[in-house]
């Protein structure tokens, strides 16, 4: 395994709200190796987006962030605004769910890409314009020279997301964070956008963090997977291992709650996610887990090696018998 390009250690994010301290992220480690696609999966409120917004320095002031986020050996947590700005959009870029809110409606898309290039590179406007058109071509926009002169409202949802990806890769980032990039799109368009992301990763060797709630998307494009629950990473491993022999009861529950051919009844996970204003003392999943014992609520399990996975379940070894496959 090569050295991580993005290394997150014991990241914690707490929001001060009127109702008290909301502990959205409670000690997360992430390793992204160069050129890989890391899928981060979890349900709403699991802390998957907040973790990476924290890494990007994009959280509001009400958030208290501790821990470490290293991009290529440079620490980002606690770095000054100027230092973060020089990284954000350059070596660390992000694509969001809604492409329309990521684009400025009153500027031509070509100009917006030029602005992105010139804010990090010393390039004259003519060359940057040429580069912008090249980028639009890379992300699969037909007639890029004409489209560069158009405004965001003249593009369809899928085409807008391509523009946003073109902007994100304008400065050849080492890591591209894509937060639910296809959730707002139709499936046939989603397939196109996933292909663009894969092409970017293969052509430029960009590492991609793909945040999604859709296990199908993960199965299609991810190399490795982090499963998040209640602000913690509950299981990590290669995509094949996670789907083949998941060891954490939450991962197993998530996979078996999906409809697939030939089953009569679906298998939901009982209960609902915990209130992060008062998260459970031990394993976050214990209140919903059918295998929970007293020890599970006693202390937070840590992510430890189990077979070819990393899992945070104290009973992983006992539960190995009788699992999905």
């Amino acid at each position: 395994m090569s050295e991580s390009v993005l290394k997150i250690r014991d990241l914690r994010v707490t929001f001060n709200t009127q109702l008290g301290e909301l502990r959205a992220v409670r000690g997360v480690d992430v390793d992204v190796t160069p050129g890989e696609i890391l899928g981060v999966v979890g349900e709403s409120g699991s802390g998957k987006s907040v973790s990476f917004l924290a890494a990007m320095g994009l959280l509001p002031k009400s958030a208290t962030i501790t821990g470490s986020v290293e991009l290529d050996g440079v620490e980002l947590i606690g770095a000054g605004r100027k230092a973060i700005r020089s990284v954000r959009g350059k070596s660390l870029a992000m694509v969001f769910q809604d492409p329309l809110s990521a684009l400025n409606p009153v500027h031509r898309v070509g100009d917006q890409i030029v602005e992105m290039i010139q804010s990090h590179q010393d390039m004259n406007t003519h060359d940057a314009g040429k580069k912008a058109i090249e980028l639009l071509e890379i992300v699969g926009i037909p007639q890029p020279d004409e489209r560069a002169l158009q405004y965001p409202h003249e593009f369809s949802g899928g085409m807008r997301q391509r523009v946003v990806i073109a902007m994100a890769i304008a400065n050849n980032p080492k890591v591209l964070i894509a937060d639910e990039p296809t959730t707002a799109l139709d499936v046939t368009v989603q397939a196109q956008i996933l292909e663009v992301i894969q092409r970017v990763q293969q052509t430029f060797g960009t590492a991609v963090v793909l945040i999604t709630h859709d296990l199908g998307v993960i199965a299609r494009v991810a190399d490795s997977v982090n499963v998040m629950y209640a602000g913690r990473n509950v299981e990590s491993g290669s995509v094949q291992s996670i789907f083949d022999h998941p060891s954490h009861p939450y991962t197993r529950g998530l996979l078996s709650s999906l409809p697939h051919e030939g089953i009569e009844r679906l298998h939901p996970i009982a209960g609902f996610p915990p209130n992060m204003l008062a998260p459970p003392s031990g394993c976050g999943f214990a209140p919903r887990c059918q295998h929970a014992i007293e020890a599970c609520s006693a202390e937070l399990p840590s992510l430890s090696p189990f077979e070819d996975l990393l899992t945070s379940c104290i009973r992983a070894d006992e539960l190995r018998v009788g699992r999905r496959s």
Partner: protein
Amino acid sequence: MNTQSDALLSVRNLVKNFELRANSGLRKTKRIVQAVADVSFDVKVGQTLGLVGESGSGKTTVGRSVLQLIQPTSGEVIFEGQDLTKMSFEQLRDVRRQMQIVFQDPFASLDPKMTVGSSIAEPLVVQGVAGNHQDKVAELLDLVGLAADHAKRFPHEFSGGQRQRVGIARALALDPKLIVLDEPVSALDVSIQAGVVNLFSDLQKRLGMSYIFIAHDLSVVRHIADHVAVMYLGKIVELGEKDAVYRNPSHPYTKALLSAVPLPDPKVERSRHRIMLEGDVPSPVNPPTGCRFRTRCWKATDLCAAEEPQLVVRPTGQQSACHFPE
């Protein structure tokens, strides 16, 4: 088309046009969007019709036209032998108690200032149903897997999945024969979604009502539906029994749609052949001539532009509208 005998609902040649008015200050323009363009289907007693398609396909408009929540431009909506489009407002009110709808967003469909109990009892009050509403509410809450004392609480005290159950309880209040489920689980997390989908199946087994299940998630529809209609730009392009449509898709669009859905299995995902459609769905203001799918179809010829294909029964049992079916 199926025989009318066991059909609870028959929709014939349904058309819904919306007018788009643009006022640029200099001149007014009027354009017409044909959201639903000549759609016919049946829903049988105690069965589920899945309505699938991408955004702009007209599936939601079909659901609302069936319930007369929006007035169809033309066509017939025959519910238990009566054409709803020809009814007066008063007549419709009587029929409406037999037809209900559950919406996608359980946060927007409940009044935050009303207790859950009064939300569920509201249809009973509106329809002037006599009897003890409290008991009925308790019974309905039990039916959807909530506790009777939940009636006193307010929507904000519930999770998304529980709110959706409240919405279902309200839809069940008047013992409807048909429920339109418009993306009822799309806003829910998968682990919660499974429980609500099971609830729909259980309720149908116990109470025998029919569903029109509108969704963009093809795997959920495959799980719950008996028949499936695939819509594209206001038209049904394929219609038939679920297994026929999913196993042997006949229309190229159905085939492409099924192959675009990511399946939760890395081995399958990495080995299967995927049909990649080019571009986006065209604007319904100015749909393509002939077959509406031809601009994205890899099989399209001059014939497809010249002549609109009609729904034809295929050897595998379903109907599809294509000059060059699979």
